């Protein structure tokens, strides 16, 4: 069973539709006990970082998400919330990836970074089974995580940034696998198969 976390800051419906297409059993939940019982956790997110972190505190999910030992996949804002800190609303995040979410420079590039961009795989990852560098995914982000020791793939939007990260049981993707056609579904399937 997969726990798809609904904390009021994510487009849960799209991820749920993708999991249904992959014929997976899942529950949409914000309940700590249910999250602890699940085999895997998907942590989606769209919107603003400080609002999202406040929601996690209100739902008493902040601590459990930091200490779970089962595979957890953060998507888009969910991934950025797994960093130490976000400059979006200047908020302390879950502290899984020791890096800070920065904003793209509006004087150099269009913000939000919106549309299909390619990734370059820089570190082997179970998420990328059957996926090659150059594959394109759908992004919609104004903030990004810089390239760091946990980066497994890189994309470019005037500067290089992390399009995916990995540390122990924690996985994060900046793009939206649930909105990225068959390549995106492959990423979700790979996560499910871990």
């Amino acid at each position, binding site marked *: 069973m997969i726990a798809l976390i609904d904390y009021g800051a994510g*487009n*849960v*419906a*799209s991820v749920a*539709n*993708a999991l*249904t*297409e992959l014929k997976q059993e899942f529950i949409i939940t914000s309940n700590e006990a249910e999250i602890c019982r699940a085999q895997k956790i998907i942590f989606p997110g*769209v*919107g*603003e970082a400080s*609002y999202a972190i406040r929601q996690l505190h209100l739902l008493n999910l902040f601590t459990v998400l930091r200490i779970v030992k089962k595979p957890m996949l953060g998507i888009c*804002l969910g991934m950025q919330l797994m960093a130490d800190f976000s400059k979006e609303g200047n908020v302390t995040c879950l502290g899984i990836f020791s890096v800070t979410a920065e904003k793209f420079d*509006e*004087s150099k*590039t*269009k*913000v*939000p*970074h*919106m*549309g*299909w*961009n*390619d990734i370059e795989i820089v570190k082997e990852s179970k998420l990328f089974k059957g996926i090659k560098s150059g594959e*394109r995914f*759908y*992004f*919609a*982000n*104004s903030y990004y995580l810089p390239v760091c020791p946990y980066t497994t793939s890189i994309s*470019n*939007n005037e500067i290089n940034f992390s399009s995916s990260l990995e540390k122990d049981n924690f996985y994060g993707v900046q793009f*939206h696998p*649930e*909105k*990225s*056609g*068959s390549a*995106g*579904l492959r990423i979700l399937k790979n996560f499910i198969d871990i």
Partner: protein
Amino acid sequence: MLCKRIIPCLDIKDGRVVKGTNFVNLVDAGSPVELAARYSKEMADELVFLDITASNEKRKTLLSLVREVAKAIRIPFTVGGGISEIKDIEALLKAGADKVSLNSSIVKNPKLISEAAKQFGSQAIVAAIDIKNNGKENKVYINGGREETNLTGLDWCKQAAELGAGEILLTSMDKDGTKDGYDIEFLKLVTLSISIPVIASGGAGKKEDFFDAFQLANVDACLAASLFHFNILPIAELKNYLRNNGITIRI
């Protein structure tokens, strides 16, 4: 590198796709869910649904349509048409839409842009702007092109960007349905003036029109309707042409 996007637009009336010229003379162009699935297969980069129904049943119909579309496709889509309140936006996003496009409501109440962007993120808020040239300047029109406002096109684009819109969907009413090419001069002015993505709309008739909008006006996405609905220009053929001419595009 970020790809330029090709976006089929589906005008929805009473649950069916329709297409007209200069916002009138509507003809039936098929089922929204079927067309959406077809475009997704044909490598459209995203879709826009604009609901032009005017009835009390509207919201319910639109929400169930959004749910059906979200189940059928794995590419992003935007929904617009008569959205005026935060709770409407919330319901559409929860039903599976990735973005909402706001038009008349933000002219009447510009604060709606900033409120919606704060709550749902800029990436979910598209400012749809319809413009028409009066011989002197581009004026902004609302209510499906029926009502002229006192706003000029460029000023309103800049203001919408400042208020937190994540994208501008700019439709030239003079060009809409003419197949005469996008309004390159004005689009160029807009992309030079603001730093959020711009979607060109109105006037696409041939492959070269898309190339010009990307190359000359530096827009981020091109929208078209009847060209795709009636398969006059297959998306694959268009994308191959653009790629062969040096435009970064997803094939």
